[in-house]
């Protein structure tokens, strides 16, 4: 398991073995480029195809046909010459395309001619009162346990939020015999009207029929409360109840497990630390990298594929992976690109895969009250900083997320802003009457995942490296 990379140099280094990374690495290796795929998880699949090679869920229909697509991607990768290392945490990437990776507690360094970032998405923060209590988890967390360990909720369970994943998870839990007491749908009423102009593309996309039948399947078995406008978890050291308002009516129900979900957002940490330019996406309400049609970023040699390039879903991620890999092949060995599917064809595939996305983004755009908390609600889970703390800091002069670090240490804990960054940006933007773009984001730097000083100290050093830091 703890195998270091075989070489020091690769044509292409792909980071992340989800749909985009699997497709990119297989494509690049098939074209004859030396390819290294680094992935943090135990096995391939990323989140959407989590545990695709090892899941104990043997009833294939329970996970759905869309899940098993991942098996073909893994097979193509394994048939290729790509070198794959799991449980490998990339902690640094820079403009020179030097990659630092921690494997089994030791760091290795490789140099790439091209890097394809396929670090995917993470769930949007859902900062409601009580969201740090034991018993509150993301919907994705429950799905991870379901796929990789066939674990299902068996206590009093509530799923709250909105978006396609919420319905998929609910259906999967029910199929595996798990328990769901209630679904609290937070989709804003106004979103339905806003989404209407985009309905045609959605109705004629693959999402529509699948989504509809899944919602029917779930609604036949679980009480669904729509129009939820307020939500809070409560309990003393452990979640005990969920309090919500729907249609102006407040209700409190005893609960053991609350699963939250309001969409996914690009995981930007590694790309931002490599200085890749990002912009605020006002529809998806997140930072997305600025990319050309082949996924190339503002840093020469670094491309981004998959949901890390802007949320597009698994099918789009696969195609974006192929596009980014083809572009790398074109740049490094143009002759070999002729063997790959034509770029025009791939772009047509992408357009098809992205069809209906704007409708979903508009319909499931999370409401302000679930993105921008107030009072004692925790914003930064690591450093335990509340919304009031942030606003107090703004009042005495904190101008943006980076100044706020000095005031409150937000974003300086181990998660490095992944769970608070968007909230801090939006909260400060609102407090200062600025746009999120103007307020900006944390300045991210390597190491993007914590490593020990001992590991850093054990890194091989040249005489020049030592001279640069040792006095005398």
């Amino acid at each position: 398991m703890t195998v270091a990379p075989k070489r020091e140099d690769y044509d292409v280094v792909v980071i992340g073995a989800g749909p985009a990374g699997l497709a990119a690495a297989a494509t690049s290796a098939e074209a004859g480029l030396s390819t290294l795929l680094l992935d943090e998880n135990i096995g391939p699949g990323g989140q959407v195809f989590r545990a695709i090679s090892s899941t104990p869920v043997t009833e294939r229909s329970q996970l759905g046909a869309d899940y098993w697509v991942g098996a073909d991607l893994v097979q193509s990768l394994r048939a290729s010459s790509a070198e794959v290392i799991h449980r490998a945490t990339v902690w640094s990437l820079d403009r020179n395309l030097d990659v630092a990776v921690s494997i089994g507690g030791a760091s290795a360094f490789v140099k790439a001619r091209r890097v394809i970032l396929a670090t995917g998405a993470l769930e949007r923060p859902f900062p409601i009162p009580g969201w740090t209590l034991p018993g509150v988890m993301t919907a994705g967390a429950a799905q991870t346990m379901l796929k990789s360990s066939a674990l299902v909720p068996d206590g009093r369970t509530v799923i709250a939020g909105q978006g396609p994943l919420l319905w998929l998870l609910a259906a999967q839990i029910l199929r595996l015999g798990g328990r769901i007491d209630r679904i609290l749908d937070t989709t804003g009423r106004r979103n339905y009207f806003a989404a209407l102009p985009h309905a045609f593309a959605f109705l004629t996309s693959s999402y529509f029929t699948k989504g509809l039948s899944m919602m029917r399947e779930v609604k036949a078995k679980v009480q669904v409360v729509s129009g939820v406008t307020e939500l809070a978890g409560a309990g003393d050291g452990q979640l005990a109840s969920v309090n919500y308002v729907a249609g102006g009516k407040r209700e409190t129900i005893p609960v053991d497990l609350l699963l939250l979900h309001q969409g996914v957002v690009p995981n930007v940490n590694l790309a931002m630390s490599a200085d890749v330019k990002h912009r605020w996406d006002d529809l998806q309400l997140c930072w997305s990298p600025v990319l050309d049609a082949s996924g190339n970023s503002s840093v020469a040699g670094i491309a981004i594929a998959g949901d890390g390039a802007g949320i597009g879903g698994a099918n789009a991620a696969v195609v974006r992976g192929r596009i980014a890999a083809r572009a790398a092949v074109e740049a490094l060995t143009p002759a070999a690109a002729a063997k790959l599917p034509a770029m025009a064809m791939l772009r047509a595939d992408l357009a098809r895969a992205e069809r209906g996305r704007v409708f979903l983004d508009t319909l499931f755009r999370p409401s302000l009250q679930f993105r921008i908390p107030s009072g004692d609600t925790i914003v930064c889970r690591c450093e335990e900083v509340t919304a009031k703390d942030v606003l107090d800091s703004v009042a005495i002069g904190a101008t943006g997320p980076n100044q706020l670090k000095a005031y409150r240490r937000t974003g300086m804990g181990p998660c490095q802003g992944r769970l608070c960054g968007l909230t801090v940006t939006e909260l400060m933007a609102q407090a200062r009457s600025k746009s999120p773009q103007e307020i900006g984001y944390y300045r991210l730097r390597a190491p993007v995942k914590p490593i020990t000083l001992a590991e850093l100290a054990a890194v091989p050093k040249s005489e020049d490296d030592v001279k640069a830091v040792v006095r005398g």
Partner: protein
Amino acid sequence: MFRRSEQDKRPQVQIFVDGVAVAARQGDTVSAALLASGQDARRSTAVSGAPRLPYCMMGVCFDCLVTIDGVGNRQGCLVPVAEGMQIEIQKGKREIGR
């Protein structure tokens, strides 16, 4: 909070949680095994000592931090269980030398 589906036929792996034997399954992450065990697996935070359980299960939130085989601050959701593994629920921050 969670139970195992009956179709799960993976072999058992014995781990120890604060010295108590727990039956996990091959391929479980430490965090999944803890959540399935029914034991109180709440860690406490380094800042205020507040109790926490894993939140994201995908390597992002660091609320799964746990001491594994004597090494503190490991992300339990990224580490697979192994026979005889010694897990300690981490209370507060990592101690020097562990």
